């Protein structure tokens, strides 16, 4: 995987693989840091890899592993002195995705969510020491991708469902039969609360999340659908913070498809 980690002081390019984690300066000029995973001599039945990347708490980069552990790296404003600050061990299955709060954190709701193969979600509050605030158990389907916005966890699952959870209470607030196949990617546009979902069924959907501050109603509406003919969508990202344009990638596709307003 590859992800930009935007921190107040710098932007890092973080890569994960079967060997471990690599961090580069955002222009790709230097490798800032390298963390190797414990790879056994002979291939074991269980795969070893790092997966799930997010910048959190203004100074950390969190990376998930196939062991279920989440590595928390403390990033200095400059230079290569990255240290492993903490290892979070609440998941028992391989981590699939990690997301940090992209809007306004709600009271007691935490600012980081981690997801794993069993569909379990963990909610954390970041800091010198991370605190586990809540756990949402899985219900049989892998949670393949997750986003967090204004205290709403939006999770995409292997069975094509999107679910919205309230980060503070762990209550389910919405359930969408969104796709006919495994959801590969979710992305969120923080300025508008638009949600993008891409799946193996060739479809990309744009949704609108909303949360009313007074009534505490949480809503999700369908805005738009695109069918990328004969392509299993593997990646989907908004290209601007308002969510007016987005880019899509797919299996066997050597192009990046960009969609924008007509």
């Amino acid at each position, binding site marked *: 995987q590859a992800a930009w980690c935007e921190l107040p002081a710098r932007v890092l390019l973080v890569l994960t693989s079967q060997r471990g984690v690599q961090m580069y300066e955002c222009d790709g000029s230097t490798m800032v840091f390298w963390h190797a995973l414990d790879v056994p001599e002979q291939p074991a039945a269980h795969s070893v890899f790092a997966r799930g990347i997010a910048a959190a708490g203004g100074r950390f980069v969190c990376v998930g592993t196939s062991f279920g552990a989440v590595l928390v790296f403390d990033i200095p404003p400059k230079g290569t002195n990255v240290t492993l600050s903490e290892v979070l061990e609440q998941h028992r299955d391989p981590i699939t995705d990690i997301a940090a709060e992209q809007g306004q954190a709600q009271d007691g709701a935490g600012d980081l969510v981690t997801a794993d193969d069993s569909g379990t979600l963990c909610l954390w509050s970041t800091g010198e020491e991370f605190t586990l605030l809540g756990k949402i158990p899985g219900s049989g389907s892998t949670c393949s991708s997750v986003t967090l916005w204004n205290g709403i966890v939006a999770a995409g699952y*292997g069975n*094509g469902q999107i679910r919205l959870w309230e980060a503070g209470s762990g209550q389910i607030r919405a359930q969408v*039969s969104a796709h006919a196949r495994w959801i590969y990617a979710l992305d969120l546009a923080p300025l508008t609360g638009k949600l993008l979902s891409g799946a193996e069924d060739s*479809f990309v*959907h744009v949704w609108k999340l909303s949360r009313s501050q007074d009534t505490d109603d949480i809503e999700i509406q369908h805005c738009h659908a695109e069918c990328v003919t004969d392509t299993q969508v593997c990646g989907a990202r908004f290209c601007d913070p308002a969510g007016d344009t987005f880019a899509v990638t797919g299996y066997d596709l050597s192009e990046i498809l960009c969609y924008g307003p007509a």
Partner: protein
Amino acid sequence: MSARTLPLLFLNLGGEMLYILDQRLRAQSIPGEKARKDEWTDVDRKRVMNDIITTMFNKKFMEELFKPQDLYSKKALRTVYDRLAHASIMRLNQASMDKLYDLMTMAFKYQVLLCPRPRDILLVTFNHLDAIKDFISDSPGILNQVDETFRRLIETYNCLSDGEFQLIRQTLLIFFQDMHIRVSIFLKDKVQNSNGRFVLPISGPVPWGTEVPGLIRIFSHKGVEVKRAEFTTAGNYVTPQREGSFELYGDRVLKLGTNMYSVTRPVETQMSGSSKTLTSQAKENIAPNPLAKEELNFLARLLGGLDIQKPAGGETGFRLNLFTTDEEEEHAAQTRPEELSYKVINIEATQEPGRRAELSRILGELEVAEPRPGSAEKGEDLLALMDGL
């Protein structure tokens, strides 16, 4: 990537190979009484199928196969099937072998791509095994070997999570990436486009465990459903009837992995012209892999890979042609784009005494027990190999 992918890759590709060989052997077979010495009969066909299946499900090979390991390189895997296809009296020219391999790989790529759920790859594998058991239904010895492997599959894979199956699926898809060989049976059935890419339907039953897209349910903070809304898309999905069986016997429901060839439908492939994607795939194939020779030595040992002698008494022998005529085969060999050639490595087993003992022991295990009256000439090279040890 998953270290449990190789058994699934090997068994499914092997299954496709058997479908194709069976179809070609039937298409080229002559009724026993009328056949000349060098023509195929039904008895020959059954024997070839038996020999290949016996070799494929060899106990030692299966044990090695099921060990957690990375996928073999494309070259190494191709060589395994070369050896497998030649485990009997049948011979294939390079062009026919190339075509066979193209068909096998594109068929399995299609099956992996269209699997509704990641774990349905197991159902595809079971479909292949069910058909293989059908091919050897009157040979209890080999049937037992296949059942053993079946049980092993169930034991190893039935308990894996969806996430682990998705990893296996991704490992397979990476292996098949950028392969766009056009197969005429796929083109005719409109499951493949003229650019070599498969058609992904947006209609039909959704996978077991998935709901038909369209419904949005909203809940209050107390968990009570307060609203329902619907959205529509171009897709036209329906709920599935039932789930396929993951037991030793049962209705798999899924059609992927069943035999799509029949005697009356000749199968052709068309080479796509050079394009950027083809070159990148070729480059990956040609890059030297120091480990490949190691893997190949081991596989060659297990499959009794000795120098295969040419059949005495003429070139044609018991050659199987994957094309309709010899001229077509010749033409295909000459016009195959350079970047798509498989560059098979040939290995000679070493002559060390220790290894020889091992080899003869393994070959002993691979020997087909039943005596074959009146076929002394046909099995000439196989017997010669045995004598040579």
